[in-house]
C-alpha cells in the first residue's frame, strides 16, 4: 500500500515537473502505435492512404486518448485549476469596479469576523500564555447557599485553599493567586498597578524560566509571613526600570512593604491575567502577612474571615472531571465543618450545602462569566451574520454577472466544455474573490481589531494583531466558507442554463424573468438585516435606559480621591487630623464647589455592621444593609437627595447625640407604613446608644445597576469611623477633565511615601454600563453594515430588472404609461421583498429574543418601538434603493430601445 502511494507520488511529480518531456513521450508512443498499425494493413496489401485511415479509425481520437492519458496521470485537475485561475483573474481584471465592490463587501464581512474572533478568543478560548497542558488545569469555584442565594464563588480564604489542597487527592498541583491593585514605587513615581500575589507553586504551572534571576521558592512563601522578595513582570521591568540587568537585589516598595527584586519574568509570561497583566509578582503569604500597613491579618491561614484569593489545580492523569468535582466537594464539606466548629455563627452544613466545581482556567468560561464576554460572543455571532449578508450580496452580484455572461457560457458549453468544468471555474472565481476579500478583511481587522480591542479589553496591553496564527486560521476558514457560499448560487444556476435559448438571445431577452434564487438571496439579506437592526435597537434602548437611570447620586461632576498614607507613621488622631486638613484644602481648590469625606464608594466597596432595631427580632433577616459614613456636605457633594427630614450638619459631632439617615427602601423595609423619622437604630451591638433617624435619602445603586435593594443608611463620619475615609469632590463641569490637575495639586500634600489616587465617578460607574455600550455600539455598526449591504443588493437586483425590462418599459411608455405607473411598477417589487423580509426577520428576532433578554436593561425583547423604528428604517432604505432605478426607468427612450433590437 505504502509502495503504491510512493509510486503514485513519484509519478505525479514527474508528470508535473517534466510536463514537456512526458507529453513528448506520449506523442512518440502514440505515433509508434499508429505507424505499426499502418504497417500491418500495408503488409495485408491495403494501399498506404487507406491503411493510414484504417489505423486512425481503429485507434480512435488521438486528442481524446491524450486527454484521457493525462487524466490517467492524475494531473488534469491541477492543470484545470491553473487554467481556471488564470481565466478568473483575467475576467476579474476586466471588470475592476465589480471586483472592487465584491472585495470590499467581503472584506467587511471577513474583517468583522476576524476582529471579533480575536476578542472572543482572548476572552473565552485561549489558554493563558505558557500554561502547561491547560486542559488539565482548573480554576476551583465554591458553591454554597446563604439566605436562599446560591452562587459560585471564585474567591475564598487562604485557610480554605490549604484545606482543599490537603483534603483532595485528585490533583497533582495546587496554586493560590490573587491579583491586587497596589501602589508600586515611592513618592510621586508611585503608581497603582496590578500585583500578582501568588504561591511559589504558581510558576510550576507554566513552561517558563525567568529571563533574569529566579522565581521565589516554597521556603520564601510560607506562613505566617513569606520573604519580601519580588519578581518583576517583563513589561514593568522594561517601562519603569529601563530593562536594566542590575535590578536584581534592588529594593522595590509595594503597598507598605519594601521588597527585594530577585528575578524578571519573560515577556510572554502574564500569569493569569483576569483583568490586567500583573506588573510584579510577590509571594502570597508575604502579602497576606503584611496586608494591614505591615501588620498581619490575624490568623489568615487558620480562620475563615478573609476571602480574597482564587486557586488553580492540576487534575491528575486518569481522573475524570466528575471524580475531581466529587473529590473537591467532599473536601469543601469537610472544610466547612471545620469552619462551623471554629465559628458557630457559620451557617450549618445542612443549610449551606457546600459543593465545589473544577472549571476551565479561563475565568470567562467559568460559572462567573462576565456580561462583556457574553455580549462579545453575541457580537461575534452578529459578525457571522454580517458575513452571511455580505455573501448573499456577492452571490447576487455573481448571479447577475452570470446572467450577463450567458452567451459566453452557452458558447463554452457548445464548444464541449463540460458542465463540471464550468462549475469548477465558477467556484474558482468565487474563491479568488473570497481570497481578495480575506486579504482586505485582514487589513480591516488589523485596524478595527485595535479599536475593538480597546473597547472590549481595555485592560489588556496587547491588542489583536495580524501575526496571530489563530486569527489567520479563522480568516482562512471565513474565506473558504465565503468562497463556497458565494460560488454555490451561480453554480446551481449554471446547471439550469438553456443552451440554445441563451445562444440566441444572449443577455438581451425581451421577456422578463427573475431567478428564484436571486429573490431568495434578497429575502435572506433583508431578513438578516432586520434581525440585526432589531438587536441594535434593543441594545440602544437598553443603553438609553441605563444612561437615563437615576443612580441616587450624580456621576459626571463627582470625583473620588483615595488618600493612601501607606501608614506614614500617623496614629488614629493623626489620620483624622490629616484628612480634615485635606478636606479643607480641597474645598478651596479652583473649580471645586463642595467636598466631603466618605468611607465607601458605590460599586467598589460596601460596608456593613450589625443592626438592632427595637421591635424587630432579627434585622439581618430582612436584607443586607450597607453603611456609608460621611461628613456634613456628603449628600450635597455626591448629589444624593434628602427626601424627608435633614442630612448631617457640623453639629453632629462624636459627642453629640447619634443620628442616622436611612434610604427610602430601608425605611419601607424596617417600618412599613410608619414615619421613620425619630426611630431608634443601634449600630454594632444592642448595647450601643440609639442612633436617631433624622432623614430619609433617595435609594442608591451601589452593587448592581440592574437590581439593587437599595437598603443603605448613613452616619456622620465623626460618629462612626473617622480615621479611614476618602475624599469626594464636586466640581463645576465635567470631573474627568480636571482629574489630572487635581491630582497634581493634592499629591504634594501627602506625607511621606503617601499618594493620592483620583478617579471620577464616571470611571467607577463606566464599567457597569460597558456591556450595554458595547452591545449598542457593535450591534449598531454591524446592523448598519448589513443594512447598507442589503440596500446595495436590493438596488442591484432592481437596477438589473430595469435593465432587463428596458424593452418592455419602452413599449409601456410608448403606449402612454405615465411616470408614476412606471415608478410604481418598479418600486412595488422592491417593497414587497422588504416587507416580507421585515416580517420574517421580526419573527426570528422575537424567537431569539428570550436568549438575549438577560443582556438587556428595562426593555423587553419584543419592544414595539424598536420593531416599529426598524420597519420604518427598512422601508425608507428600500424606497431609496428602488426609487433610483425606478427614476432611471422613466428615462427610457422608447424609440431608441425598440430600435436597438
Amino acid at each position, binding site marked *: 500500500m505504502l509502495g*503504491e502511494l510512493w*509510486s503514485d507520488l513519484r509519478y505525479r511529480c514527474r508528470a508535473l515537473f517534466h510536463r514537456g518531456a512526458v507529453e513528448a513521450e506520449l506523442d512518440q508512443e502514440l505515433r509508434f*502505435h499508429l*505507424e505499426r498499425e499502418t504497417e500491418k494493413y500495408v503488409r495485408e496489401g491495403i494501399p498506404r492512404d487507406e491503411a493510414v485511415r484504417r489505423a486512425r479509425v481503429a*485507434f480512435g481520437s488521438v486528442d481524446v*486518448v491524450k486527454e*484521457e*492519458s493525462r487524466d*490517467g*496521470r492524475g494531473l488534469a485537475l491541477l492543470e484545470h485549476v491553473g487554467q481556471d485561475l488564470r481565466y478568473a483573474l483575467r475576467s476579474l481584471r476586466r471588470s475592476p469596479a465589480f471586483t472592487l465592490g465584491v472585495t470590499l463587501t467581503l472584506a467587511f464581512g471577513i474583517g468583522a469576523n476576524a476582529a471579533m474572533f480575536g476578542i472572543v478568543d482572548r476572552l473565552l478560548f485561549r489558554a493563558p500564555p505558557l500554561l502547561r497542558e491547560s486542559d488539565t488545569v482548573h480554576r476551583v469555584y465554591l458553591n454554597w447557599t446563604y439566605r436562599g442565594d446560591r452562587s459560585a464563588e471564585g474567591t475564598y480564604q487562604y485557610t480554605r485553599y490549604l484545606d482543599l489542597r490537603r483534603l483532595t487527592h485528585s490533583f497533582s498541583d495546587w496554586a493560590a493567586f490573587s491579583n491586587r491593585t497596589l501602589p508600586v514605587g515611592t513618592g510621586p513615581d508611585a503608581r497603582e498597578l496590578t500585583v500578582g500575589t501568588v504561591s511559589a507553586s504558581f510558576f510550576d504551572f507554566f513552561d517558563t524560566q525567568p529571563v533574569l534571576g529566579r522565581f521565589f521558592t516554597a521556603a520564601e512563601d510560607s506562613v505566617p509571613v513569606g520573604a519580601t522578595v519580588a519578581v518583576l513582570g517583563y513589561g514593568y521591568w522594561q517601562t519603569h526600570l529601563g530593562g536594566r540587568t542590575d535590578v536584581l537585589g534592588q529594593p522595590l516598595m509595594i503597598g507598605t512593604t519594601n521588597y527585594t527584586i530577585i528575578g524578571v519574568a519573560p515577556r510572554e509570561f502574564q500569569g493569569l491575567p483576569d483583568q490586567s497583566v500583573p506588573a510584579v509578582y510577590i509571594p502570597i503569604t508575604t502579602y497576606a502577612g503584611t496586608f494591614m500597613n505591615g501588620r498581619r491579618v490575624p490568623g489568615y491561614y487558620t480562620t475563615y474571615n478573609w476571602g480574597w484569593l482564587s486557586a488553580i489545580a492540576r487534575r491528575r492523569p486518569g481522573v475524570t472531571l466528575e471524580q475531581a468535582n466529587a473529590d473537591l466537594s467532599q473536601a469543601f464539606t469537610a472544610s466547612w465543618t471545620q469552619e462551623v466548629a471554629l465559628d458557630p455563627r457559620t451557617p450549618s452544613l445542612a443549610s449551606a450545602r457546600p459543593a465545589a466545581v473544577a472549571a476551565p482556567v479561563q475565568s470567562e468560561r467559568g460559572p462567573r462569566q462576565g456580561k462583556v464576554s457574553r455580549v462579545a460572543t453575541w457580537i461575534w455571532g452578529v459578525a457571522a451574520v454580517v458575513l452571511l449578508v455580505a455573501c448573499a450580496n456577492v452571490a447576487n452580484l455573481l448571479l447577475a454577472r452570470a446572467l450577463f455572461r450567458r452567451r459566453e457560457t452557452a458558447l463554452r458549453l457548445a464548444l464541449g466544455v463540460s458542465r463540471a468544468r464550468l462549475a469548477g471555474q465558477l467556484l474558482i472565481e468565487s474563491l479568488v474573490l473570497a481570497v481578495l476579500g480575506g486579504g482586505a478583511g485582514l487589513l480591516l481587522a488589523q485596524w478595527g481589531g485595535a479599536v475593538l480591542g480597546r473597547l472590549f479589553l481595555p485592560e489588556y496591553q496587547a491588542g489583536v494583531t495580524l501575526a496571530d496564527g489563530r486569527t489567520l486560521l479563522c480568516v482562512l476558514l471565513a474565506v473558504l466558507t465565503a468562497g463556497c457560499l458565494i460560488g454555490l448560487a451561480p453554480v446551481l444556476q449554471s446547471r439550469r442554463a438553456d443552451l440554445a435559448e441563451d445562444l440566441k438571445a444572449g443577455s438581451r431577452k425581451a421577456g422578463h424573468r427573475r431567478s428564484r434564487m436571486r429573490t431568495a438571496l434578497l429575502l435572506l439579506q433583508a431578513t438578516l438585516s432586520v434581525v440585526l437592526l432589531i438587536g441594535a435597537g434593543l441594545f440602544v434602548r437598553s443603553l438609553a435606559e441605563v444612561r437615563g437611570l437615576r443612580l441616587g447620586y450624580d456621576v459626571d461632576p463627582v470625583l473620588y480621591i483615595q488618600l493612601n498614607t501607606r501608614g506614614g507613621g500617623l496614629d488614629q488622631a493623626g489620620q483624622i487630623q490629616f484628612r480634615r486638613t485635606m478636606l479643607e484644602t480641597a474645598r478651596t481648590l479652583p473649580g471645586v464647589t463642595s467636598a466631603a469625606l466618605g468611607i465607601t464608594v458605590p460599586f467598589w466597596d460596601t460596608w456593613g455592621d450589625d443592626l438592632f432595631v427595637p421591635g424587630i427580632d432579627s434585622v439581618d433577616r430582612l436584607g443586607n444593609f450597607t453603611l456609608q459614613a460621611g461628613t456634613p456636605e456628603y449628600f450635597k457633594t455626591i448629589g444624593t437627595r434628602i427626601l424627608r427630614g435633614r442630612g448631617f450638619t457640623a453639629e453632629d459631632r462624636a459627642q453629640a447625640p447619634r443620628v442616622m439617615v436611612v434610604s427610602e427602601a430601608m425605611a419601607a423595609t424596617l417600618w412599613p407604613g410608619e414615619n421613620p423619622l425619630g426611630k431608634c437604630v443601634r449600630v454594632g451591638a444592642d448595647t450601643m446608644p440609639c442612633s436617631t433617624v433624622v432623614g430619609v435619602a433617595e435609594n442608591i445603586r451601589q452593587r448592581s445597576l440592574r437590581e439593587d435593594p437599595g437598603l443603605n443608611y448613613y452616619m456622620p463620619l465623626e460618629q462612626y469611623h473617622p480615621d479611614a475615609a476618602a475624599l469626594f469632590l464636586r466640581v463645576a463641569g465635567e470631573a474627568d477633565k480636571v482629574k489630572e490637575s487635581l491630582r497634581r495639586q493634592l499629591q504634594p500634600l501627602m506625607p511621606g511615601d503617601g499618594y493620592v489616587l483620583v478617579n471620577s465617578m464616571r470611571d467607577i460607574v463606566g464599567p457597569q454600563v460597558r456591556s450595554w455600550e458595547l452591545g449598542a455600539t457593535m450591534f449598531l455598526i454591524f446592523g448598519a453594515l448589513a443594512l447598507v449591504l442589503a440596500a446595495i443588493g436590493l438596488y442591484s437586483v432592481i437596477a438589473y430588472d430595469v435593465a432587463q425590462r428596458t424593452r418592455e418599459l419602452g413599449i409601456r411608455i410608448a403606449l402612454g404609461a405615465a411616470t408614476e405607473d412606471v415608478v410604481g411598477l418598479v418600486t412595488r417589487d422592491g417593497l414587497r421583498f422588504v416587507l416580507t423580509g421585515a416580517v420574517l426577520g421580526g419573527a426570528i428576532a422575537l424567537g431569539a429574543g428570550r436568549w438575549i433578554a438577560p443582556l438587556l436593561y428595562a426593555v423587553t425583547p419584543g419592544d414595539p418601538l424598536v420593531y416599529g423604528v426598524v420597519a420604518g428604517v427598512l422601508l425608507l432604505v428600500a424606497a431609496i434603493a428602488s426609487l433610483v432605478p425606478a427614476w432611471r426607468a422613466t428615462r427610457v427612450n422608447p424609440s431608441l430601445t425598440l430600435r436597438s433590437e
Partner: protein
Amino acid sequence: MTDDRLELPQGTLDLLILKTLSLGPQHGWAISERLHQVSRATLQVPQGSLYPALHRLERRGWISARWDASDNNRRAKYYELTRAGQAQLRAETRDWRKLTAAVDLVLGME
C-alpha cells in the same frame, strides 16, 4: 462488422493488460495485437483506450516503462510487470474466477 465482438466489462482491461505483460515486456501496439489475437478477435478493445489504462497502471506502480529499441530498430516504450503488479494480477485473477464462477452458478439455476 460482425456482432460477436464484446464490449469489455468495466475494469477488466486492467486485468487483461497485466496478464498480457506477465508473459514478458511489450510495447502498447503489441499488447493491443496480442489481446486481439488471443481472444480470437472477440474482445473489442478500442486501441486508444489502452494508453490511458497503461498510464494509470504505471502511476499505481503495477507496471513500469522504459524506452528500448523495437524489432525494426525504432524506439518504443516497453511496459513490464513489477513485483506489485504480479501480486495485483494474482489477486485480480482470483477475484475474476470467483466472480465468473458465481455468475455461472446463478445462470446454471434451473
